[in-house]
């Protein structure tokens, strides 16, 4: 197991390194000089040059990368060009917001998706199955942002049930925070729930038709434990894998959702930073996203291993 984690970590490190190079080069490939943006439309060329120098943009690329990566390894991502706030500090403010949003969305998704998937699989071909499958397809097909717009239209503009947007920190006002996060989390969670539902259903159908479920039935076990213990336990590996795979979609969804609901999280930070060519922020945000993504996938692998004794012992996932 330790070896397994170690090997995964090694692979992750390589991916991370290449990823960071990609991030760095990608940011530099963006059209539009950040110094020009910063200097604004009243700028003098000397001010632009000074700014460029200040951010090291006049150095050769490998030097720039080396500096950035070296500092980033020590947790120093530089300062936002927009407001001179240390990027680390900004990340500290924004990350919890997105994590909260994602967690809430995940709770919605897992709650709805897994339950519906299990129900659909056990009631295969019945009304409940069609309803759940229909929901799955529709949920998969509806773009987040439209759902968000519709949600605002219905709940805020027409019904005035929920505030349209904005964010208040959980620590300040838990009620207000949840009230504002509810709709975004629902919107973000829906598509995710749909995917989970479909995968859970399909995994459950697989395990329900597996020989060991027939064995469980032949033991005279109640349907509840046949489904809930034997089938579900084996489907969980799939569910966990899907969770990992869907993380990217979740982050993508968060970008859009935060944009619509004006939630000051990572997604909004990314889009804003790209618009203002805020290099240090873009680099840090994307890098942290990638690190998070890799880390969660690592966790998923480990969870997968824990759920699947075959992997646990041999240290090799065969899925």
């Amino acid at each position: 197991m330790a070896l397994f984690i170690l090997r995964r970590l090694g692979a992750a490190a390589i991916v991370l390194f290449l990823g960071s190079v990609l991030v760095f080069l990608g940011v530099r490939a963006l059209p539009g000089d950040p110094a020009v943006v910063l200097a604004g439309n009243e700028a003098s060329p000397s001010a632009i040059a000074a700014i460029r120098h200040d951010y090291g943009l006049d150095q050769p690329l490998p030097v720039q990368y080396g500096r950035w990566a070296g500092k980033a390894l020590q947790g120093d991502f530089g300062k936002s060009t927009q407001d001179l706030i240390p990027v680390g500090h900004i990340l500290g403010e924004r990350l919890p917001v997105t994590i909260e949003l994602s967690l809430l969305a995940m709770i919605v998704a897992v709650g709805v998706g897994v339950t519906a998937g299990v129900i659909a699989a056990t009631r295969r071909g019945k009304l409940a199955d069609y309803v759940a499958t229909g929901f799955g397809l529709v949920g998969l097909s509806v773009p987040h942002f439209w759902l968000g717009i519709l949600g605002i239209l219905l709940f805020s503009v027409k019904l005035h049930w929920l505030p349209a947007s904005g964010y208040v920190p959980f620590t300040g006002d838990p009620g207000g925070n949840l009230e504002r996060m509810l709709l975004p989390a629902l919107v973000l969670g829906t598509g995710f729930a749909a995917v989970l539902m479909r995968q859970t259903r399909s995994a459950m159908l697989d395990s329900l038709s597996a020989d060991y479920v027939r064995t469980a039935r032949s033991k005279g076990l109640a349907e509840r434990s046949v489904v809930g213990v034997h089938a579900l336990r084996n489907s969980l590996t799939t569910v966990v894998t899907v969770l990992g795979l869907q993380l990217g979609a979740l982050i993508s969804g968060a970008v859009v959702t935060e944009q619509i609901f004006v939630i000051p999280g990572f997604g909004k930070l990314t889009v804003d930073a790209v618009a203002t060519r805020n290099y240090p922020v873009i680099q840090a945000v994307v890098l942290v996203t990638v690190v998070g993504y890799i880390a969660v996938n690592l966790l998923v692998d480990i969870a997968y291993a824990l759920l699947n004794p075959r992997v646990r012992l041999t240290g090799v996932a065969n899925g």
Partner: protein
Amino acid sequence: MTETVLEVDGLVKHYHVRGRGQVVRAVDGVSLSIGPGEVLGLVGESGSGKSTIGKCVLRLTEPTAGSVRLGDRDITHLSRRELRPLRRDVHMVFQDPYSSLNPRFTVGQIVAEPLRRHGVARGAQVTERVREMLERVGLGAEMRTRRPHELSGGQRQRVGLARALILEPKLVVADEPVSALDVSVQASVLNLVADLQRDMGFSCLFITHDLSVVEFLADRIAVMYLGQIVETGPTKKIFAEPQHPYTQALLSAAPEPDPVRQRARKRVVLTGEVPSPVDPPAGCRFHTRCPVAVDTCRTVEPALTGVREADRPVACHLVTSSEIPDITERD
């Protein structure tokens, strides 16, 4: 030494399992030879390395060590290009009648494929030879346009045979071609193989785990255990007097379809687990399950030598010119 069609010498095949750092010693020093028109039956338990030998003979997998000679050519180190013309003379029939035929091709295309690959025939000639071959394996010409999924298991195996035999090869490697078939279908395919072999005169490496099948078909038998051959010899002699304890166990474990005789037989039930080829036991590989094993068996690896008769070498310390171990005695 007589002329041979196939000669395998000291063949070793180790699979390196990715990421696990383990080595599967699938085949560990196997030598065998097949003469012209001879059928060699290769038997042994699941995982003993039978298929691996078959694949090495066709260079579908690269041997780790040892040599494979086809006729007078050593093919062990030939490049794929150099090998190509030699492939005319060796063909293979596979176990699974479902995965061994390309589902996208028609039966006609499948059977014609070797002809085309080797440029043996063109145009109408191809059609004619395919028709002929299909007829020979008992399939009507109307089968030519069908696709594999439209055929029964027995019919598929016939197509596989037709494909393997259309170039009239010198050697056919048949990897459990009947194990997936029902008894009644199996009988007709076995008859067909026997007939074709006699008519066309090809040599055959026939891999199976079913002793009654080799008894029916093979001239000689090689018994494998855990990557090694433990005993080989003419079929009749081995069935009449198995010398290696494993061969004895194998023969005694296969139930005879006759209640009176079956129930009267003395049977040996092997104890102990089948060891893994990842970590084969030292000494004689069979010693962990052998009821008559002695201390030497645990440390010294027996050589495959014709102690008693030159044409039937056995790899067992206990087989001596004066004595053959009898595992039933120790019940």
